[in-house]
């Protein structure tokens, strides 16, 4: 088995209880790298894309990369893949923490779940010992308690737990998988699919760390890259001290901080809720890193109310804050903690609630539908905290909110008020102020998402170089390169934040030294492009149509009303045809046979 791969996968049929260990062919590892790539390969192989996402036939995959569990900087990432219940397309959600590294140490590159357990269950893994155990006594518990109880039950505090909370059990379409209590495979509803399988948790303990073919060469590269990350102002200073929430003021001053369901891009309460405010108010206690991470961007916080937890990060703080017009940092942080405990994606949760607030404000959501809940008005901390909990338990209006913003807004006759792409809610950058990011949103294989191609980096932050955010020229090429490189990083098992400091050669060095595959930069990019195209093929077979490569009407037609981006809309039609051409796709966005042949996908 090559280098730092475990070389095998664990296949668990939850319906029959059968557990199998299978070898992974070396040729497949090299072509798909690992993590997101290898997961996508097996998803395509094992799942009919037309399957109902919440049916037992859906396949749920946990995938590590070749660098997961190694000392490579940030080498602790893993992916959760399935057909997603928000988009009915490919779902692929990334998390850090310790779980992925532990799974690799137990000797598995991937875990594949099929079927549905007749009773609530959890999977216990200790190296070669793999047992499905009953979990009825855990069903209904929040994620923190589930984690504590499982560690107690296993008699080992070092057991790493990935689990769902009540939101996943209740099939909230944006439920997530939480590991080590605070780290989330957050997006696309992978937690709902886990819930639909009656799988409450995975508890894993491993004792064999992966080894590179030439330890000295690998460690030399690692030392070199660690130095680069330490010397970089973003990864060495900014992210450790202020975390991702340094972005609140940056994006607000740029005029692209989505406020009150993307009705404007400037939030008057930013100074109250920013990353700087989190420090100044004394809520931030320390920072924390994931496995093998030198960056440590995680926020460990404690509120005057006595609540403790991790977060908010930029996205969560925005989703629970500006997106709903809320400038109460205590309520925002409490709501973030609550989402973590209940097991819900903060982004989709916040954007769905913001959608409900606009529906209510405009009179489309009648008061009688609130049952006994508070009025969902912009700026209401009470509504925020009430409905976060109501969604997880599908209580009252929470039942409709749990379906996500597109189904909610469609139900009330106004789908245009859902700020989503392909059914998944948009994150914290209004693309009217960042044209390339608009193209990246419209073409993301998992729907509305910023981490398939983070064009904010060149368009706003000036990394690796500063682009004009209002120019559309050349943006298609930038988006393609970022999408393909991101697919590589996600497949290696590294964190995307390394890309603020590392370049393509750095990833090639680490990947080649870990696996023993002598990748060139070109071959590595071809792997990224192959993964992107395979996701796209899955989506077409699942029912994707070309007109779904778009954005909410508001962002294409309603000029930004104020601020530095006043008057701007996203000029998507000026970028999309060029993007299709650069991808080697036809005018409907379908990969051509020639392109598929060149990627060995034909």
């Amino acid at each position, binding site marked *: 088995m090559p280098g730092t791969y475990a070389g095998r996968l664990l296949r668990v049929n939850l319906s029959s209880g059968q557990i199998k260990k299978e070898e992974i062919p070396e040729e497949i590892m090299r072509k798909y790298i690992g993590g997101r790539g290898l997961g996508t390969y097996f998803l395509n192989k094992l799942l009919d894309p037309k399957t109902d996402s919440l049916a037992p036939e859906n396949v749920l995959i946990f995938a590590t990369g070749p660098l997961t569990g190694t000392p490579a900087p940030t080498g602790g990432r893993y992916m959760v893949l399935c057909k997603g219940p928000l988009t009915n397309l490919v779902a692929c959600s990334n998390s850090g923490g310790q779980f992925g590294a532990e799974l690799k140490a137990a000797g598995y590159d991937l875990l594949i779940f099929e079927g549905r357990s007749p009773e609530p269950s959890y999977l216990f893994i200790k190296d070669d010992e793999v047992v499905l155990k009953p979990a009825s006594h855990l069903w209904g518990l929040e994620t923190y308690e589930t984690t504590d109880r499982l560690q107690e039950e296993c008699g080992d505090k070092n057991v790493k737990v990935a689990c769902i909370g009540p939101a996943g059990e209740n099939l909230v379409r944006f439920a997530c998988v939480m590991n080590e209590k605070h780290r989330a495979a957050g997006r696309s509803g992978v937690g709902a699919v886990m819930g639909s399988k009656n799988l409450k948790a995975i508890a894993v303990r491993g004792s064999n760390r992966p080894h590179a073919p030439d330890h000295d060469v690998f460690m030399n590269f690692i030392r070199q890259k660690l130095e680069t990350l330490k010397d970089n*102002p*973003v990864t060495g*200073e*900014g*992210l450790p*001290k*202020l*975390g*991702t*929430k*340094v*972005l609140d*003021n*940056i994006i607000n*001053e740029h*005029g692209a901080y989505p406020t009150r369901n993307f009705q404007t891009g400037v939030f008057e309460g930013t*100074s109250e809720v920013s*990353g*700087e405010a989190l*420090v*100044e108010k004394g809520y931030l206690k320390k920072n924390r890193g994931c496995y093998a991470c030198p960056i440590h*961007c995680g926020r460990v916080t404690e509120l005057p109310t006595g609540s403790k937890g991790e977060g908010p*990060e*930029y*996205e969560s703080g925005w989703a629970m804050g500006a997106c709903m017009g809320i400038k109460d940092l205590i309520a925002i942080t409490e709501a973030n903690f609550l989402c973590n405990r209940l097991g819900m994606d903060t982004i989709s949760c916040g954007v769905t609630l913001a959608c409900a607030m606009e529906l209510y404000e405009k009179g489309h959501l009648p008061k009688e539908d609130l049952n006994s809940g508070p009025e969902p008005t912009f700026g209401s901390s009470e509504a925020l905290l009430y409905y976060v909990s109501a969604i997880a338990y599908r209580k009252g209006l929470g039942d409709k909110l749990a379906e996500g913003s597109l189904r909610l807004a469609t139900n009330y006759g106004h789908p245009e008020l859902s700020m989503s792409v392909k059914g998944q809610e948009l994150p914290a950058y209004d693309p009217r102020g960042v044209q390339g990011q608009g193209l990246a949103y419209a073409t993301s294989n998992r729907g509305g998402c*910023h*981490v398939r191609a*983070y064009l*904010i*980096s060149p368009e*706003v*932050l*000036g*990394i*690796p170089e*500063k682009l*004009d955010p209002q120019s559309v020229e050349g943006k298609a090429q930038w988006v393609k390169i970022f999408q393909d490189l991101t697919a590589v990083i996600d497949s290696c098992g590294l964190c*995307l*934040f390394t890309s*603020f400091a590392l370049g393509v050669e750095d990833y090639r060095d680490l990947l080649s030294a870990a696996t023993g595959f002598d990748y060139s930069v070109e071959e590595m990019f071809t792997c990224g492009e192959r993964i992107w195209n395979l996701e796209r093929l899955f989506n077409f077979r699942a029912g994707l149509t070309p007109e779904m490569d778009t954005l909410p009407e508001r962002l294409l037609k309603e000029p930004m009303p104020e601020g*530095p981006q006043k008057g701007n809309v996203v000029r998507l039609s000026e970028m999309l045809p060029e993007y299709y051409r650069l991808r080697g796709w036809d005018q409907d966005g379908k990969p051509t046979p020639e392109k598929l042949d060149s990627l060995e996908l034909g």
Partner: protein
Amino acid sequence: MHLRVRFFGLLRLDLNIQEEELILQVDKATVGQVVDALVLKHGPKVGERLLAGENIRQGTIILVNGKNIHHLKGLSSEVRDGDVLSVFPPGAGG
């Protein structure tokens, strides 16, 4: 001339100042000269955070009246009486 300077990110935490008025005894100046004046007033940390040698550090954002100086004339961009400078040391996230 009188300028308003707004500090963000690590610089705001370093200096413990959100914004201040900066008075320069000239009618116009470049952004580079304003940064020099801030270094004189607050110490070398300001320069370390924002600059790499003579150039703007990768990831530093300086806005003059909301416009990024990268899209003006960089550190040679002119400022005038009444202008507002917003200064961000390198920061990122996702």
